[in-house]
């Protein structure tokens, strides 16, 4: 197992004798860790360095002498104390290990040849290393139905289980979803779920990773490979912006699984199921392996790269010649590597000369704000005793491993979180106080909390007394304009000068893309577009471009002729659906650079086949600004290629040179020439936990003035947020997770539902000024009065038709249809 003891700085040294030698250990640390750190690995099954010890399996018995004679003790339960003498290799210990293994194997089926764990199984390995070789038990072994599904993703084989309590402890302690439990007693004990209530945790895949036997297996990997056939490389998950470290494991050029790596500042070895099983999309049959060009009959058909790139280049040149460079726009790029993001920035801004570039799709925050806020790392936010103001989206749904860290911080490390948002979230049970801010009121609720006029006296005092306030800031509601969040951020910076911020944006490398300059008005390194030409560039745009909504608006009315979608799908992702539709129809040429023909690419004139996660090497930047490496493990299908290569080829055809001599790393090094923050990356790739970049510390962003209309008694304020499993392309292309997305629904509070006659699953008509949808309504205790919640990109009902981008809030009327 890859579970190493945590790094430790010895502050209270004590001396203990380990197998006859004096060693120094930290007072109070667990003996099992101290021994491992000093070269004596003690076999174990139940102990996991990220969970509390339980002493279940008894495998870690060692002889401990604290002055009263040596006795066998479980080393995972014994804190080190001064003068302790430990023997991990004595005859007594060997006999104990031998005996424990004989017991553990008494009921274990020994079906290793057909077990997925065989070859990487702690029980198998330790039975070989410390076990008796043969068993004295002749009795029939315990029999159970072979694997039973305990969730849509995880199977449980109770015969193989050795009852180590790891999965059940994980579910309870780490994930907070105790849906699996020991059931029955004695020799009948088994791990199981409650009948009809599956282990539907967002984190269920971790139990498969930490299971020390083959009892838990995950459907995407079952019977796909033997461990000795797998090759692995360490990389970073890019499904959301938390940036969990993973190993990517493949066989025969196909990724077969991802495992979490214990990165102390980030993911602590945990992954969410969306990240863990999302690799399936890369193996999808629907990947495109060749560029696609819309033929005269209107079909997208495969063409050679030369044809596709020539077509793209001539469309761009024609637009630039005709209406100027600003008639070309680039939308997306928040899922690319840093190198690709920089290459596209340079192509768009330095070569084509347009500043109409935005990597966010109207669902993020202004780049100046994200990059300008004084930063807080995940560790700083979760630091013992910290006070956190949480203004972000539901972390459990959007940034799952950040949720695990925050949950642990609040639950075990005394971190006090005040949550302000339009609904309760997955984090609400653990926070000090959840304060409802109806859509449009976020800034005013925060203002009241900080100036002491809030009725939430305790929360207000907590925030005002905090010596260094940490703020997690993001978009809890896509139907509320971003300026309201900007205003809240400015308020906090003005009234709490020492406050630091963790931006909770969602897309994998959104921060890296912003730092690379894929945002209007910015250059790489967060520099403001003001005439300075970065080294290696020919020129910079002369006029500032527009944000995603402005770009789409321009495309809709023909001012943007060429719309390049860089791994983005505005038709599905941009909150204002009708604008996205008009834009795609209005642009003369739509070029999609994507691994899939997504909803928007269906309407494109040209689709350039791009590589995906695990197919391209480079670096990525997580929400804190931590740069980590992405490694390539498999090759992209057909002639699909990295986004930066596409940029290089396109630049060539536009008669310029992107300056890449050997590899994508040249791009990163060029960026480092210009950006002080990126200098750390110049001397080679960031390894392991990565390098933190900090380009914060700018002036406030002045948000546009806006007025939130008063709520009227007949309507509800719409909250548009996301769920972990939705109908996004990558999920839809992952067979094991595709079915987990729910149906469209509007969630109401009981107080609002009753007068409408809504109970259970009534069909209702939700009407805004701009459109209406028919959808099932349910009552949700997390929803406050006055609010209607719908989920973005979920189900067949398109909530995006209700809003218009630029409106501060969206009021809807709900009637039983």
């Amino acid at each position, binding site marked *: 197992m890859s579970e190493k003891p945590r790094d430790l700085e010895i502050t209270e040294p004590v001396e203990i004798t380990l197998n006859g030698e004096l060693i120094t250990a930290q007072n109070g640390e667990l003996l099992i860790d101290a021994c491992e750190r000093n070269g004596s690995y003690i076999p174990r099954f139940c102990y996991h360095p990220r969970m509390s010890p339980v002493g279940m399996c008894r495998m870690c018995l060692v002889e401990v002498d604290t002055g009263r004679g040596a006795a066998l003790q479980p080393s995972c339960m014994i804190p080190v104390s001064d003068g302790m003498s430990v023997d991990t290799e004595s005859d007594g210990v060997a006999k104990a290990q031998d005996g424990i293994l004989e017991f553990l194997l008494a009921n274990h089926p020994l079906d290793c040849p057909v077990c997925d764990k065989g070859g990487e199984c702690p029980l198998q390995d330790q039975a070989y290393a410390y076990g008796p070789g043969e068993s004295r038990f002749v009795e029939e072994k315990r029999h159970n139905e072979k694997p039973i599904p305990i969730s849509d993703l995880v199977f449980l084989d109770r015969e193989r289980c050795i009852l180590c309590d790891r999965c059940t402890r994980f579910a309870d302690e780490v994930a907070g*979803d*105790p*849906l*699996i*439990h*020991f*059931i*029955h*007693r004695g020799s009948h004990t088994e791990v*199981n*779920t*409650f*009948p*009809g*209530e599956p282990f539907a945790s967002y984190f269920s895949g971790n139990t498969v990773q930490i299971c020390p036997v083959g009892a838990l297996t995950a459907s995407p990997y079952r019977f796909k490979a033997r461990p000795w056939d797998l090759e692995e490389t360490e990389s970073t998950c890019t499904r959301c912006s938390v940036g969990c470290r993973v190993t990517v494991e493949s066989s025969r050029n196909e990724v077969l699984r991802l495992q979490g790596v214990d990165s102390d500042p980030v993911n602590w070895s945990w992954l969410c199921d969306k990240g863990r099983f999302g690799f399936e999309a890369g193996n999808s049959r629907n990947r495109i392996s060749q560029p696609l060009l819309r033929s005269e009959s209107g079909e997208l058909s495969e063409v050679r790269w030369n044809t596709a790139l020539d077509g793209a280049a001539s469309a761009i040149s024609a637009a630039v010649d005709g209406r100027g460079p600003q008639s070309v726009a680039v939308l997306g790029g928040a899922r690319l590597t840093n190198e690709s993001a920089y290459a596209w920035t340079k192509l768009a801004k330095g070569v084509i000369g347009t500043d109409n570039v935005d990597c966010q799709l109207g669902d993020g925050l202004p780049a100046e704000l994200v990059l300008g806020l004084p930063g807080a790392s995940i560790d700083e936010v979760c630091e013992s005793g910290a006070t956190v103001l949480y203004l972000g989206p539901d972390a459990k749904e959007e940034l799952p491993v950040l949720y695990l860290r925050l949950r642990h911080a609040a639950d075990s490390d005394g971190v006090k979180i005040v949550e302000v948002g339009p609904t309760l979230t997955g984090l609400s049970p653990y926070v000090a106080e959840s304060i409802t801010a109806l859509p449009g009121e976020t800034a005013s609720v925060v203002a009241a909390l900080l100036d002491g006029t809030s009725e939430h006296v305790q929360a207000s005092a907590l925030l005002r007394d905090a010596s260094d306030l940490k703020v997690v800031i993001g978009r809890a509601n896509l139907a509320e304009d971003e300026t309201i969040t900007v205003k809240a951020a400015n308020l906090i910076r003005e009234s709490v000068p020492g406050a630091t911020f963790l931006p909770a944006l969602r897309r994998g490398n959104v921060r890296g893309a912003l730092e690379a300059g894929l945002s209007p008005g910015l250059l790489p390194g967060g520099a403001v577009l003001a005439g300075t030409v970065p080294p290696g560039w020919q020129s910079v745009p002369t006029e500032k471009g527009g944000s995603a909504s402005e770009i789409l608006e321009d495309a809709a009315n023909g001012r943007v002729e060429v719309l390049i979608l860089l791994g983005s799908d505005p038709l599905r992702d941009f909150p204002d659906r009708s604008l996205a539709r008009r834009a795609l129809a209005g642009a003369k040429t739509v070029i999609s650079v994507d691994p899939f023909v997504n909803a928007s690419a269906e309407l494109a004139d040209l689709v350039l086949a791009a590589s995906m996660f695990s197919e391209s090497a480079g670096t990525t930047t997580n929400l804190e600004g931590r740069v980590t490496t992405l490694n390539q493990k498999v090759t992209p299908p057909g002639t699909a290629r990295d986004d930066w290569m596409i940029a290089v080829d396109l630049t060539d055809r536009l008669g310029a040179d992107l300056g890449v001599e050997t590899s994508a790393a040249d791009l990163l090094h060029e960026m480092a020439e210009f950006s002080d923050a990126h200098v750390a990356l110049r001397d080679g790739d960031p390894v392991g936990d990565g390098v933190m970049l900090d380009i914060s510390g700018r002036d406030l962003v002045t948000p546009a003035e806006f007025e939130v209309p008063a709520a009227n008694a007949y309507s509800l304020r719409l909250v548009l947020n996301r769920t972990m499993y939705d109908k996004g392309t990558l999920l839809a292309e992952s067979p094991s997770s595709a079915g987990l997305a729910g149906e469209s629904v509007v969630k109401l509070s009981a107080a609002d539902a009753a007068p409408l006659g809504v109970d259970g699953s009534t069909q209702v008509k939700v009407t805004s000024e701009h459109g209406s949808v028919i959808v099932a309504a349910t009552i949700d205790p997390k929803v406050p009065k006055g609010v209607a919640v719908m989920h973005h990109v979920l189900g067949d009902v398109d909530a995006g038709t209700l809003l218009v981008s630029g409106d501060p809030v969206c009021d809807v009327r709900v009637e039983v249809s």
Partner: protein
Amino acid sequence: MARLTPDNLLLARKIIARFPKPRSATIMLCHLAQEQDGYLSEEAMAQIAELIGATPAEVLGTASFYEMFKMHPVGKYCVNVCTNISCQLLGGEELLEHAEEVMGIRSGSTTEDGMFTLEDVECVAACTEAPAVQVNYRYFNKVSPEGFDELLEDLRSGELSRTIPPHGTLGYVRQDLDGDRIANITPPSQQVEPVWFPDGDSDEGPAK
């Protein structure tokens, strides 16, 4: 059936209120549900979980640890025949066989009329009275096959309904022995109702 009746729900809330942490009431609420239905149903466990803020899996995990919570419907009377060493030596296994014969069921199952569930059990701590039988955990000592037949007859006819309430009922009479055989056991006549039973104004404080 299954979910708590309104009265029991009220009682459940009172029980929960006696503890600083709601989940401390798990076992008591399981007893309450078992008293209501004769066994602990899945619906009841799910409802208990809701009431105490736990998951149903946690309630099941806790309840299933205890042999005396029955997860499946059982007869009105659970008849336990001890087959552990003392009883075995004095005819426990023969008694069990006899019981299976006369009741027409195998150990571990319930008669069709829903009157009896027969179980063979490990030591019930009545070795001096072997072979011992329990009916709803009330002891019958030195039971002969004929005695067993009589016992069944008395249970069927209602003769014993006063001393042996239906399975799940909480309360009195744990052991019915002659005075001279009792050591440090409160005689049934002096036992009080369990503390979580309301008696008029039980709101006024903790356990009596």
